[in-house]
């Protein structure tokens, strides 16, 4: 009897804890009060009495793979290498090219580009930056399996003098600047690299605004400002990147003030950040396209009718609703409106399950078929479930397989998949950057074409777009290519994604880059 009573009492206690716990979680009022006193306390605590915080902490969802820019091509690493290193050129927040280590550049001929380099730039170890470093870097980049596709077309780097180089390409290369502005095209010091050899990644030395201090794997990377940065003293004294894999935890950390800025904001938390007076959500449409890739080399996806059927079968609005909480834009083509060469008039596949079934029957699958759908990461996994349900409606049974990111990239590069979800962050806002790696037959595999799409006409158009140096003529090639790609239904573009950053409202210097190439050296309170 006593035990029964106790059971009741304890259950009551638990229930009351839930009820209060949930409500305090849902409304932000009590949290805010606690936060305001908290963030002040924390700032003081961090700086031993200084009134303002000088250490800026930002959180992202995954740890870096390497701080050697030529050893990897993943975003989490790029977010850090961007602060440590510089490239020849970069894109600013308006997606315009501006010089980074290069002061000026001009084309000497369709295949030769001269770059005049900045003088007086110092590496983090104190040595001088010279043209020989550029030659060394580009040649080194050509050795890296994940990054060489960006500079493969450069056959020679001529060092004219200490501050002038000429890049020679095998063919005229329209997107050359775009590739040089890519996150992976960083200039590294010849001296330090040769000295450290394989261990360069442990002693990252660059010319960027922030210097490397330490990396605690799985936890954080600490950078401090480069007092001799050639663009002027960075406002951020110390920058710390923290790894917080759980989306909810990242937002909570921002709310409590433990971190000052977060990347990869969980879609459903965006409203919370917007409604929270202490926080600010910076959001805008990016160059990123998310899609469902179909393996064109595997049956039944080698059949155009099947691919088209799948395009009709998917309810993109629902996918967007679930994956991005409604903040994406339906994509009818493979590159977004912010990208050079965007074609708004391609053949559209509206959500039409009936038509899908028809096409499937025509293709010889009146009862559908069984296949697998691969995915990785929370947001895509949710999209996968919606797609699975959509496909089930037209008779296609798709078994979902969830994978870890590294293995995912490797296996999809090898073409082991039937269908998979992926996206492409077009860091250069250039049609070439968005389409060549993904649709040219030579890019099949790790370079990007994981749909294993092969079409001679598209190849020709992309190649022409690449060598055309007149920027007014280039879009047409890409638009035509998109017409073919969408007619062939090479894949199913799903949506264009916004890029966003969540930050403390009083954090200054936050600049959103449409390619998600955010720089953090000007953050301060």
């Amino acid at each position: 009897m006593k035990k029964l009573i106790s059971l009741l009492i304890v259950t009551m206690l638990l229930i009351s804890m839930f009820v209060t716990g949930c409500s305090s979680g849902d409304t932000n009022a009590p949290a805010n009060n606690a936060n305001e006193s908290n963030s002040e306390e924390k700032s003081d605590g961090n700086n031993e009495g200084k009134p303002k915080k000088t250490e800026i902490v930002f959180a992202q969802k995954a740890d870096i793979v390497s701080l050697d820019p030529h050893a990897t091509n993943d975003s989490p690493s790029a977010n850090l290498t961007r602060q440590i290193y510089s490239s020849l050129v970069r894109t600013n927040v308006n997606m315009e090219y501006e010089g980074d280590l290069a002061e000026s550049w001009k084309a000497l001929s369709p295949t030769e580009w001269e770059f005049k380099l900045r003088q007086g730039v110092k590496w983090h170890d104190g040595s001088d930056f010279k043209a020989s470093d550029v030659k060394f870097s580009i040649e080194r980049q050509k050795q890296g399996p994940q990054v060489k596709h960006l500079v493969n077309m450069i056959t020679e780097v001529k060092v004219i003098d200490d501050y002038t180089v000429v890049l020679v390409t095998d063919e005229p290369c329209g997107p050359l600047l775009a590739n040089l502005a890519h996150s992976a095209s960083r200039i590294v010091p010849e001296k330090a690299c040769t000295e450290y050899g394989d261990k360069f990644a442990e002693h990252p030395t660059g010319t960027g605004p922030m210097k490397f201090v330490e990396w605690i794997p799985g936890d954080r990377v600490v950078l401090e400002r480069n007092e001799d940065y050639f663009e002027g003293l960075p406002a951020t004294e110390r920058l710390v990147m923290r790894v917080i894999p759980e989306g909810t935890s990242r937002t909570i950390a921002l709310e409590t003030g433990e971190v000052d800025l977060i990347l990869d904001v969980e879609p459903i938390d965006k409203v919370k950040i917007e409604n929270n007076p202490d926080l600010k959500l910076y959001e805008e449409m990016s160059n990123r396209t998310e899609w469902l890739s179909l393996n064109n080399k595997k049956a039944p996806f080698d059949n155009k009718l099947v691919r088209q059927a799948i395009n009709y079968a998917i309810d993109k609005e629902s996918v967007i609703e679930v994956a991005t909480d409604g903040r994406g834009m339906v994509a009818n083509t493979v590159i977004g409106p912010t990208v050079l060469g965007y074609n708004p008039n391609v053949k559209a596949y509206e959500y039409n399950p009936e038509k899908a079934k028809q096409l499937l029957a025509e293709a010889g699958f009146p009862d559908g078929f069984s296949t697998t759908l691969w995915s990785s990461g929370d947001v895509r996994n949710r999209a996968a479930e919606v797609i699975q349900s959509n496909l089930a409606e037209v008779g296609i049974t798709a078994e979902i397989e969830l994978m870890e990111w590294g293995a995912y990239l490797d296996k999809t590069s090898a073409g082991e998949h039937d269908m998979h979800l992926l996206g492409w962050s077009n860091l250069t806002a250039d049609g070439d950057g968005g389409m060549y790696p993904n649709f040219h037959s030579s890019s099949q595999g790790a370079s990007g074409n994981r749909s294993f799409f092969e079409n001679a006409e598209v190849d020709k158009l992309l190649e022409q777009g690449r060598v055309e140096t007149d920027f007014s003529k280039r879009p047409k090639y890409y638009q035509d290519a998109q017409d073919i790609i969408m007619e062939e239904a090479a894949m199913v573009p799903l949506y264009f994604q916004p890029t966003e950053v969540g930050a403390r409202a009083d954090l200054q210097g936050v600049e959103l880059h449409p390619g998600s190439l955010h720089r953090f050296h000007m953050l301060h309170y």
Partner: protein
Amino acid sequence: MFKYILKRFLMVIPVIIGVSFLVYFIISLTPGDPVKMMLGEEASEESIQEVRDELGLDKPIIVQYFKYISKLVRGDLGVSYRSKRPVLGEIVARFPITLKLTFWSMLVAIIIAVPLGIISATKQYTLTDSICSVAALIGAAVPNFWYGLMLIIWFSLGLGWFPSGGYEGIKSMVLPSITLGTTAAAIITRMTRSSMLEVVRQDYIRTAKAKGVNKKVVIRKHALRNALIPIVTVVGLQFGHMLGGMVLTETVFSIPGMGRLMVDSIKSKDTPMVLGCIITLATVFSLVNLCIDILYAFIDPRIKSVYK
């Protein structure tokens, strides 16, 4: 005494070797080509074959296993497929964190559980006892990852008392320790209670009470000491469970420990890392059990005498 310890210590080694074989065998069942994963897609067929020959991946499993063991005894755990850095280095960096967390959780668990168990046993059949027992039952039934999330919402977001994750100072250890410690506490409480109850019924306790010894002293000196063995056993077992429960807790609280490392490695089929992690954990667990066995000898001299 020394012979006892030595004997038990020597028995750990074959177990570890056995564990390595077991895990190696299991991992070898995994589909997928590790060399391709290591070198990436651009690698040519020749370089892939070269590395395969170098690693001896074309030879039968047994041969590969012996190669692994021979490296293992020299302290070389191989190189991670994913990060290309030595496995041992990464483990050494992250294991102490997991260990620390487990230690704190165990501390929390014991501090809560043992007194509660004793109170429960001495006040058997009262309301206090009933509440404690039921609370322990429920505590053992709550899935700890869910519990962890709830704690974050209540105490980190709601009250702002503790950080929501990460590994920075004592404050960040509190919530994770409570999460992990609660389930263990529940189980240890129940064991303490039942063990104490059994002991308390013994004749020598009645004799002590009849002699007029202070009740508290009776409990401390006689009852507890004799009840300790099953309690210590359970603590040891719970330590093992905690090492497993680490995986979830570290994910929820973003702690850069070995649990998360292991899960990430398993998901990315990073065999050397997985093997390294499991072997480390198994070794630690065996050593903990060894300590517990030695502890037995201290608590109960009869056990020691068997080995004299």
